[in-house]
């Protein structure tokens, strides 16, 4: 999904972001960690005033640290609640760098985007009610591989999307940024107006590129404004707009723009990238903009130039899958200290994320007050009103039900495939319709030919399941081993997140494609058995449902290897399946 981009463009994006961090939202930096990314970040750092905040947002930040809350040591010392500023409020007026944005917890994303929208944080926790300004720009470091992406809600709010993986170290160079230029540009920013026809052109171009979100044209306008300010222009000019289109609109494009003149699309469009170097940019006024062409066409041409053909398939696929990723759920297990139903309190230490039960703590401290007061009298400094010691701390305990995720593994091979798929799909939808009551999730993997494919990543959205499972293909060989391997990997990753997987395998057990993709029954069965044993070792709750008209011994023997329940259901339909699955998850 690379957008071909000059290093100078990437650097210009850094400067535009530095000129208007809040307005342009931020930068999505899709790149592996490495010298190229570091070089870009160094350039950005040089463009930002050193006296303004530049904070890092780590992956597993506690909600309290992010939003702010009670500063316990200060509170106990002062005898009244003392608030601690959260990271979002600390970043006010500066830049927040989000590490590993592709693995970000769903809750962190919600707080971050809410703060970006409101430009302030509202805290309602620990007996505090605070509003604090939080105007900042975001740099999201996205190290995702193929199908891992930063949350869609966050990406939508970030103006610039850069892919640095396309640059080799030798393609890059140090770029001297004059901080004074940036500061001067910031001062000019407010005075720059956008013309009505310019707004229209950007909106038209965005629509032609299939960009649905209205944030995109808005962010493009702000980028254009920042560009005009940076290059010391009084009004926004065509160069500013084409630059904004390349940096903001091109990476979001979902369709190739429809062109009226196909002959024009072939040769590279007339605008060479104008901002090769900000220093001598003022000398570049020699290029006369093509006045005859409507501005939106100029924008489209600029976007096209930045988009090599074939990139759109990848783009579309990534957008589809990124949604699946939008609710990363790392660290579900630790939450039990903070949420759920309270179930009493226990003596303990105040560690990250644990919640003090104040009344119990005070009760514990009460009998010792006269004694402690006498001891404290000799010490220098004024004694706090209440002497609470570490031993008094009582930590609230919460009970949280773990989420169950049901993984359907469907054999989509052979002639019965379509029937099996259709009923499995029906069962998935029935379960989802029912499972929002229990807040559980469902996933679906299908295997056929020589591969297994995750058709539906874990979700509780019925809408998404419907879309993902429309029009499934069937037929071909039976790579049972590949299907089981894929299911095991998914189940294992679910377990690591503290959720409970249940695997439902729909097959007749007649494997005929080995793990390496080669046909041949004996090897295929051997591989499938080996894959099945992983489930037994990891003690994953699983069920094998044999839907063939005459259930045979093969499926039953696999169930044994997996330590799964075996259910022969020759005439099962969606409703029966869903019931069987519900029974299985309850039991497990």
């Amino acid at each position: 999904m690379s957008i071909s981009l000059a290093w100078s463009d990437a650097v210009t994006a850094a400067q535009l972001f530095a000129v208007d961090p809040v307005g342009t939202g931020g930068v999505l930096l899709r790149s592996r960690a490495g010298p190229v990314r570091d070089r870009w970040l160094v350039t950005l750092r040089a463009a930002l005033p050193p006296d303004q905040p530049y904070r890092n947002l780590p992956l597993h930040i506690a909600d309290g640290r992010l939003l702010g809350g009670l500063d316990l040591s200060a509170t106990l010392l002062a005898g009244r609640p003392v608030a601690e500023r959260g990271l979002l409020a600390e970043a006010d007026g500066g830049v927040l760098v989000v590490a590993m944005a592709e693995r970000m917890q769903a809750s962190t994303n919600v707080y971050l985007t809410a703060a970006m929208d409101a430009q302030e944080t509202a805290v309602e926790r620990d007996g505090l009610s605070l509003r604090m300004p939080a105007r900042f720009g975001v740099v999201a470091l996205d190290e995702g591989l193929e199908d891992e992406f930063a949350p869609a809600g966050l990406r939508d709010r970030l103006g610039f999307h850069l892919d640095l993986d396309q640059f080799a170290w030798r393609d890059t160079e140090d770029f001297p940024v004059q901080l004074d230029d940036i500061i001067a540009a910031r001062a000019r920013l407010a005075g720059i107006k956008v013309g009505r026809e310019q707004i229209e052109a950007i909106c038209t171009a965005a629509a032609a590129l299939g960009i649905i979100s209205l944030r995109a044209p808005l962010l493009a306008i702000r980028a254009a404004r920042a560009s005009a300010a940076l290059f010391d222009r009084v009004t926004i000019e065509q160069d500013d707009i084409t630059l904004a289109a390349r940096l903001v609109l091109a990476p979001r494009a979902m369709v190739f723009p429809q062109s009226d003149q196909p002959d024009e699309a072939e040769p590279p469009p007339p605008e060479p990238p104008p901002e090769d170097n900000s220093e001598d940019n003022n000398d570049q006024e020699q290029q006369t903009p093509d006045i005859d062409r409507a501005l939106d066409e100029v924008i489209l041409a600029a976007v096209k130039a930045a988009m090599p053909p074939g990139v759109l398939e990848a783009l579309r696929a990534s957008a589809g899958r990124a949604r699946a990723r939008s609710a990363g759920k790392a660290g579900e297990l630790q939450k039990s200290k903070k949420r759920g139903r309270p179930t009493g309190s226990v003596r303990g230490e105040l560690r990250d994320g644990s919640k003090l039960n104040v009344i119990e703590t005070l009760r514990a401290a009460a009998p010792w007050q006269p004694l402690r007061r006498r001891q404290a009298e000799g010490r220098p400094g004024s004694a706090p009103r209440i002497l609470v010691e570490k031993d008094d701390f009582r930590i609230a305990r919460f009970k949280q039900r773990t989420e169950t995720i049901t993984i359907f593994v469907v054999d989509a091979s052979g002639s019965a495939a379509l029937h099996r798929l259709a009923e499995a799909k029906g069962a998935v939808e029935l379960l989802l319709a029912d499972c929002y009551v229990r807040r559980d999730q469902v996933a679906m993997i299908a295997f056929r030919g020589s591969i297994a494919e995750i058709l539906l990543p874990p979700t509780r959205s019925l809408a998404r399941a419907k879309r993902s499972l429309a029009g499934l293909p069937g037929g071909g060989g039976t790579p049972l081993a590949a299907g089981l391997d894929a299911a095991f990997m998914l189940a294992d990753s679910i377990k690591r997140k503290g959720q409970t997987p249940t695997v439902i395998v729909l097959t007749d057990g007649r494997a005929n494609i080995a793990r390496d993709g080669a046909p041949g029954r004996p090897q295929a069965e051997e591989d499938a058995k080996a894959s099945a044993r992983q489930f037994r070792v990891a003690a994953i709750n699983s069920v094998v449902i044999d839907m063939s008209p005459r259930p045979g011994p093969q499926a039953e023997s696999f169930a044994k290897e997996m330590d799964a329940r075996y259910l022969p259901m020759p005439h099962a339909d969606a409703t029966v399946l869903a019931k069987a699955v519900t029974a299985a998850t309850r039991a497990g």
Partner: protein
Amino acid sequence: MATVFPFSAIVGQEEMKLALLIAAIDQKVGGVLAFGDRGAGKSTAVRALAALLPKMKVVVGCRYNCDPDLPERFCEECKEKAKHGKVKTAQVLVPVVDLPLGATEDRVVGALDLERALAKGEKAFEPGLLARAHRGFLYIDEANLLEDHLVDLLLDVAASGENVVEREGLSIRHPARFVLVGTGNPEEGELRPQLLDRFGMSVEVKTPDTLPERIEVVRRRDAFESDSTAFLEDWSKEEAKLRRKITQAKDRLPDVSVPDAALERAARLCMTLGTDGLRGELTLMRAARALAALEHDKIVTDDHLKRIAPSALRHRLRRNPLDDAGSSVRVDRALAEIFG
């Protein structure tokens, strides 16, 4: 508070705007749930509503926004005050209280006042968000991601109109009647049916898809962000007009009559759709009446029912996951069947 985009300047989104206005005219209609695309202006509309609403009368110094005209519903403190003569009143903005996703239980229901507990060793109650939202709106952004135990709590209070606090040695009850407003993106998960049912109306929000509309949205947004003072000034007349409309509609509401024929149609519509319980019919009637009041009509007609039925009923249909037609389509079908 940051400056808010004016309600009347919101382009399109007619269904959502109408639902919010109706909720403002008759709080008994119940809340509004707006589900839809990212960046379509759901939160903007809700925050804009807060700035638009006409002021309300409260007892001065009351932590629960008691209504001076309804002494029988006073909280304990106001009852005490009322014994010593007439209570002082004031006009204040209708509260629109945010329930942030990360809110802790103690802040929602209220809890022990930490400061007084630590400083003086006293047991005192500090009211939470539910107390602040009394007689106003409680707004949940990303309602579908709200923690389950908070949802349970809201359901209980929304049903009884009263917040009962039994925690940390406190035993307090105070009135908490509020209009729930929720927004969310269906891609991120469904809402629990129990909570869904508490919302009087639900609307589907889509990003505008016609070019002129999109341009207008971006243009106004840009104008607002470039110079919010001038923008607010430009729209202040429209805002005042709309505010007057709400006030007048509120006054007219008791005079709007619902003929038996309309009641029958509403009942038939709900039967055709197979909605659970009577809540659907009640909401439909109340919403249609508020709509009539808004439009200076004295009698509820088929036209009012037809226009408001999708919002009032679409989230109450029994789910049939194997039927691919969306709820809106099913409501439309039933409407066509009954109204011809």
